[in-house]
């Protein structure tokens, strides 16, 4: 596309150098052709179409099927996404099949989370890693770690005092 524009421009410039007087019409034609050819093709835009999004999701799910943590995470996100979309469809009174119209509005928050998930999976080969832990277990672990820290600090203080005392 770009090379076509360049050759077009080269031919035009050669013509221009040959002819001394310029007509505005070829110039206008050139400018419009440049503007039209440099229009960004749709494929490089972020897809607003849900069918494309579903393809990305399938890709993520298939590749990460074996991983416990990520299948939990992806499953949760998928459930939230489907719940929201199905909820919106039910509210409108008509239940559509998964291929949603492109003009459908989605909340920016869930959009971001879904895109974040697929984006992150693509960026690293590994999925976003998480761990399932209850607050109760976390609190106990912190408590044990604090006791260990205090015990070690006391040991260290004792060693320092022994050194000073020598």
């Amino acid at each position, binding site marked *: 596309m770009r090379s076509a524009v360049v050759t077009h421009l080269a031919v035009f410039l050669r013509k221009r150098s040959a002819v001394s007087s310029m007509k505005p019409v070829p110039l206008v034609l050139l400018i419009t052709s440049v503007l039209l050819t440099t229009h960004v093709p749709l494929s490089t835009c972020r897809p607003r179409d849900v069918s494309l999004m579903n393809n990305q999701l399938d890709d993520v799910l298939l590749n990460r099927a074996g991983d416990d943590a990520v299948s939990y995470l992806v499953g949760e996100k998928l459930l939230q996404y489907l719940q929201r979309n199905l909820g919106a469809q039910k509210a409108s009174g008509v239940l559509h099949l998964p291929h949603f119209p492109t003009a459908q509005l989605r909340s920016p928050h869930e959009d971001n989370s879904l895109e*974040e998930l697929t984006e992150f999976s693509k960026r690293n080969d590994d999925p976003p890693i998480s761990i399932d832990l209850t607050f109760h277990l976390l609190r106990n*672990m912190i408590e044990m770690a604090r006791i260990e820290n205090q015990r070690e600090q006391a040991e260290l203080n004792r060693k320092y005092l022994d050194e000073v005392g020598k």
Partner: protein
Amino acid sequence: MSGTLRAQLCFLLLSVTALRGHARFLDIQENDISPEGLLSLLSSELKRELPEEFVYRRALRCLDMVAVEGQFTFTAERPQLNCAVFFIGEPSDIISIEYDSVNIDCRGGDFVKVFDGWVMKGEKFPSSQDHPLPLYERYSDYCETGVTRPIVRSSQNVAMLFFRLHQSGSSFTVTFRKLINPFPCNVVSQTPEGSFTMIIPQQHRNCSFSIIYPVEIQIGELSLGQHNDLKRSILGCAGSGDFVELLGGNGMDTSKMFPMADLCYSFNGPAQMKVGCDNTVVRMVSSGKFVNRVSFQYRLLGHQELQQMKGNSVEDVCLRA
């Protein structure tokens, strides 16, 4: 002499006198401290180097929590596929993790990753709104950058290590250190009781103090900006760029928690609030125009108090499993 020749000679004389200068140099004896040594003393990590016998060492478990500085080794006796180690320091610390020796098979699917924050059930602390880096930059993989950047620093007092080792016999050793952070932002409290003063010195950022217990918070002093705008307080905190909010919830992510109270004007004198949730957060939003400061204390809510709160409230905002 001709005019131009005289001018050229004057110019030459001028340039010669101007380029003459005085040089000073440090006369350092051989057995004195070298400039490299002086510079290395300024690095905070070397300052905290302990002699060998004082370094704390122990083995890591697949699921572990570490709050003490030292050297930790994990050796896989059997394939360990989902392991996580939590690191936590004092509120005014940041975590530094250094890879000492890593003996894993990167190509075989092994990994050792450091996460800047804590992740639990897919929810991360600090949330994306409160952390300066995007999500993918908060994971630091040894297999990708570990050799060139062996030291990873967190932005707050918590960090995590995720690892997966397929072969028995694989191992790695990390040194965990705590460095001082003069303006802590984003803290997980180690204890259900304590006090803290959060200061945001003219920075456009949001900071959260997370207490993973149901607590009663008593705010002693709040200083937001310089002006006491009465108009702002009538409209609520929605329009102001500097405010403090109390959040309660059952997850780690502060952006998914429920607001319990909003404070958008300065005051002196205690204001108390009981939050009966698994995670209580004091969050300060700062526009960057002022120096904002909040001082608060917190204590654990007893079982009876929680029962009383359950009985009094009509709706239970913090649902419990």
